[in-house]
């Protein structure tokens, strides 16, 4: 009996502020919930799948979906690659001051996204930004990062990779340290090259963790919002309009809350399907 006093408060809070809204989102997406309904619930009308039908015909929604997928497809492999590279470096016994480097690499993770987006917006500045200055040293002409529809999303990917690689690095580092030392010892005695060791011992040793961090990173990246909000306001030419940004504008700029709920639900379904697909792929690989 006493146990319910312990779990009760947390369960009530989760119920009211999480589970009820999840069901609420599904129900709201079937209505024309707008500013009038917000002030008086009697103005609410049930419209079935109308929101979903109009969304799927809205070119801007598709645009936001492609932009988000582009961000995920470009950003996730780059992030995981950077994380793995950093983890291997920090794990290498040849390195000195390794815990110092680990802390430096991790620092961007704890920073405030809005603040570092403001900083990076300036690093990407066409004339005075440091990135173009660095590139000019390599003989590359200035890029209009925030103003060119082709470059705005890659710029956001650069920020995201910088901000996030430390997180997965920590998880991969723990996985690397779990690989038994005698496996490496045996490979060395057999005269395996560095690449062979990496390919046949390191990668299989961390494969399950690699799959896990890919899925976590991917679901995080589907929720792209603050970067375009601060850096590009979804532009130029809507090239950085993400699904969540689209939802935010539908909901809190145009007050089509029913339609915005439908957007949120479609995003959730998409994330769920992609995650399930990845898990399945990972399991098949594991079986072989």
């Amino acid at each position, binding site marked *: *009996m*006493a*146990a319910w*006093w*312990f*779990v009760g*408060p*947390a*369960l009530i*809070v*989760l119920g*009211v*502020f999480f589970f*009820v*809204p*999840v069901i*609420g*989102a599904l129900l709201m997406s079937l209505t024309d919930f707008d500013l009038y309904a*917000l002030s008086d619930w009697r103005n609410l009308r049930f419209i079935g799948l109308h929101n979903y039908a109009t969304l799927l015909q809205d070119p801007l929604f598709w645009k936001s979906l492609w932009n988000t997928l582009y961000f995920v497809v470009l950003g996730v492999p780059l992030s995981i690659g950077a994380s793995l590279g950093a983890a291997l*470096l920090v794990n*290498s016994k*040849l*390195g*000195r001051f*390794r815990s110092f*480097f680990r802390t*430096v*690499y*991790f620092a*961007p993770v*704890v*920073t*405030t*996204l*809005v*603040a*570092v987006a*403001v*900083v990076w917006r*300036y690093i990407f500045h066409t*004339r*005075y930004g*440091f990135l173009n200055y660095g590139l000019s040293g390599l003989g590359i002409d200035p890029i209009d990062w925030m103003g060119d529809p082709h470059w705005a999303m890659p710029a956001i990917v650069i920020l995201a990779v910088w901000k996030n690689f430390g997180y997965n690095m*920590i*998880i991969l580092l*723990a996985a690397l340290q779990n690989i038994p030392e005698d496996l490496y010892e045996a490979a060395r005695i057999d005269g395996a090259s560095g690449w062979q060791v990496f390919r046949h011992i390191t990668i299989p040793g961390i494969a399950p963790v690699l799959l*896990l*961090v890919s899925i*976590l990173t991917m679901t995080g990246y*589907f*929720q792209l*919002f*603050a970067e375009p*909000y*601060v850096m590009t*306001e979804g532009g130029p030419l809507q090239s950085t309009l993400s699904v969540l940004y689209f939802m935010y504008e539908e909901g809190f700029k145009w007050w089509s*809350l029913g339609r915005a709920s439908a957007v*949120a639900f479609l*995003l*959730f379904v998409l994330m769920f399907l992609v995650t399930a697909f990845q898990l399945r792929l990972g399991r098949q690989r594991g079986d072989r």
Partner: protein
Amino acid sequence: MKRRGPAVVVNLLLIIGAVLTAFPLLWMLSVSFMPTGAASSYPPPLLPAEPTLDNYRQLFANHNAGRYMLNSAIVASLATVIALVLNTMAGYAFAKLRFKGRERIFQTLLGALVIPAQVTMIPLFALVKEMGLISTYGGVIVPSLASVFGIFLIRQYALSLPDELLEAARIDGASEGKIFWSLVVPLLQPILVTLAILTFLATWNDFMWPLIVLTDQKLHTLPVALAGLSREHVQDNELMMAGAVITVLPVLALFLALQRYYIAGILAGSVKG
């Protein structure tokens, strides 16, 4: 004799990586001390020629930075304290107390981890409005008061507490409440620090929900205020850098002080999958 080539390469790469990673943050700090317009020159200056605190003075005098900082501190502290109490009680109960449906409820909670918080945001807005909590501290913190992840974190740690210890206290006639506060909580101390810092940083850095729910500018948290300011003052880079510094510095300092606990939390979280 050992070959030195690989060691040089590894250390060189470590240094290059660190320079690239730290550069944006160091440059942010440096530009924040430059007078207005000084950073807009080519090539971009690395260090301020004449360091000044003007940007910070202007932030606090003309742009209400003190108020926003206080808002952020209140919101993050309130959320942390309440989340700590609720999640710890629930996590402990899921680990050590027996009640009907315990496993089923816990599995349901874990299953809910796949649902992103953004799905709840719009109905939550309507709900918070019904409760009259739009533009209040209460409205900002409601989604962070209890978390499945927090409950999970505490539960995993509490599982390792010895049952004999709790039984002995019960035989001595201690109430469940007393056992919790004077026996369990002290033993959970390391994981409580972890949960506290994770919650504090997450609420301090949070952006989308505060942006939606805080319609009154006086209650804006630092990230919301900074985003608004940076849209209005696109040209005023030095001021923006100072704003970024006061937003980032408190959490960065907190992380550096409690790094061990923070990383323990990340590792505990990654086993859940």
